[in-house]
């Protein structure tokens, strides 16, 4: 088994690494340390560059105009793209584009015309509305938002919490209960236009995250056409689950990138900082922190690449994606924490990016399925069909 990068992968990794250093970091130095956006003119200019590099819209399938790059390579690039201060939640400030809501690729042709293609052209934005105040770990049971059929429409009442980007979106995927007796088989996914009467973004939910605040939504007698059902009636949960599984790989990659950057900064710093007459790098306590960082990063990296490789081969990868998400988020949290310790007081100032990474990384053990849920998924798969 050869674990080295191909020449093409190495070239792409170097290209993106240079882009982050030469284009993103200098811009970021002028921004507030909690900023999540760059100036529109800078964004347009950088998008031109990523297009010229052939790397714009990396996650868009080739059939829809994206570059044909496999998931392993995209994972390697995602690890590079998050290596800056805002990188965890705003990797490269979005200048590499995105595929938006992946489940829209499963939409009907009229739905694609109205939602998917405008998203791919950068004209529309969507949100993903699954979590409710009644709980996000087990949405199949927790969803209380109700949709009741009324002729050609469904009438939706309820609400969602922690929904990212809903205030700026033109539409969103809203998961609602359509059959109260069927548990996970009673949830349907609706594409909802945010200008539908009864749709309200009630408030911003402030969290540890600097970038992209979450919001709370309410739906009051919101009438959504039957034609706006994504997939089948009562088939929403499979759509949600599929999206969450796929999302876990880039989610893990983003954490690894931040850990790599934090660790590299610590490795650079320790020979320069002297205490008690010798550099920190000569202290075993510090060396061991760096060693633990290195091991954490390598473990997380290989598990994440393994999940991506399985997905590329068309094999089931749910367990691997859950392991990648679990290990990468927890390992990267430890790495950032150790780097803060190594930098001492400077580590917790806004002069350095660690404090932002520390806050935002904490969310990563909860978002997209908390650590306990990942363990639950792995345990279920393990007991159903033992791993070798």
């Amino acid at each position: 088994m050869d674990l080295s990068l191909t020449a093409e992968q190495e070239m792409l990794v170097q290209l993106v690494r240079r882009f982050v250093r030469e284009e993103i970091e200098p811009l970021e130095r002028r921004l507030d340390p909690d900023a999540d956006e760059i100036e529109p003119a800078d964004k347009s200019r950088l998008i031109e560059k990523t297009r010229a590099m052939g790397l714009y819209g990396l996650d868009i399938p080739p059939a829809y105009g994206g570059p044909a790059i496999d998931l392993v390579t995209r994972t390697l690039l995602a690890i590079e793209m998050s290596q800056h201060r805002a990188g965890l939640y705003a990797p490269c400030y979005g200048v590499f584009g995105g595929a938006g809501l992946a489940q829209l690729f499963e939409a009907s042709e009229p739905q694609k015309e109205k939602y998917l293609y405008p998203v791919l052209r950068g004209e529309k934005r969507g949100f993903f509305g699954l979590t409710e105040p009644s709980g996000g770990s087990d949405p199949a049971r927790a969803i209380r938002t109700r949709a009741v059929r009324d002729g050609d429409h469904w009438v939706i009442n309820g609400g969602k919490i922690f929904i990212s980007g809903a205030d700026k979106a033109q539409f969103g995927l809203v998961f609602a209960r359509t059959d109260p007796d069927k548990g996970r088989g009673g949830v349907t996914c609706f594409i909802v236009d945010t200008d539908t009467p009864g749709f309200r973004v009630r408030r911003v939910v402030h969290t540890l995250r600097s970038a992209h605040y979450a919001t709370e939504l309410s739906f009051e007698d919101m009438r959504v056409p039957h034609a706006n059902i994504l997939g089948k009636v009562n088939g929403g949960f499979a759509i949600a689950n599929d999206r969450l599984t796929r999302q876990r790989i880039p989610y893990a990659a983003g954490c690894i990138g931040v850990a790599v950057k934090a660790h590299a900064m610590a490795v650079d710093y320790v020979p320069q900082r002297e205490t008690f007459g010798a550099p920190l790098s000569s202290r075993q306590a510090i060396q061991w922190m760096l060693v633990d960082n290195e091991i954490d990063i390598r473990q997380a990296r290989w598990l994440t690449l393994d999940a991506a490789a399985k997905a590329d081969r068309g094999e089931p990868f749910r367990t691997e994606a859950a392991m990648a998400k679990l290990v990468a988020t927890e390992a990267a949290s430890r790495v950032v924490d150790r780097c803060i310790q190594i930098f001492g007081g400077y580590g917790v100032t806004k002069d350095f990016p660690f404090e932002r990474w520390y806050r935002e990384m904490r969310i990563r053990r909860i978002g997209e399925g908390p650590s306990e849920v990942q363990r639950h998924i792995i345990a279920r798969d393990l007991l159903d069909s033992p791993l070798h």
Partner: protein
Amino acid sequence: MALTIDKPWRPADQVPQVPAQLGVFELADAAGVVVFIGVADARSLFGLRGAVADALQAVPGAAGFRYESTSAYHTRYRELLMVHQATHGALPVHNAPMQLGRLQP
């Protein structure tokens, strides 16, 4: 947390008592109308104290201010602007136009 700043209005001469922390603030004219919403981000020298003093000088007709210390200054600032826009149909007169989301509190 209240959607708008629910702290008391203070006259301009109380700026020296403002903490040098990160946060958000509003300026009002003599009639109590909010004319500017500002933020003391991590680049401001002396945090809110410096940012409020600078804004009082820069905004014509500003007679008083109120503030809120918060480490979530970035998201809170946007929230205040969105709530103002939703309530009054526009941003305060001295805020430059910017791309915001839509809130309907």
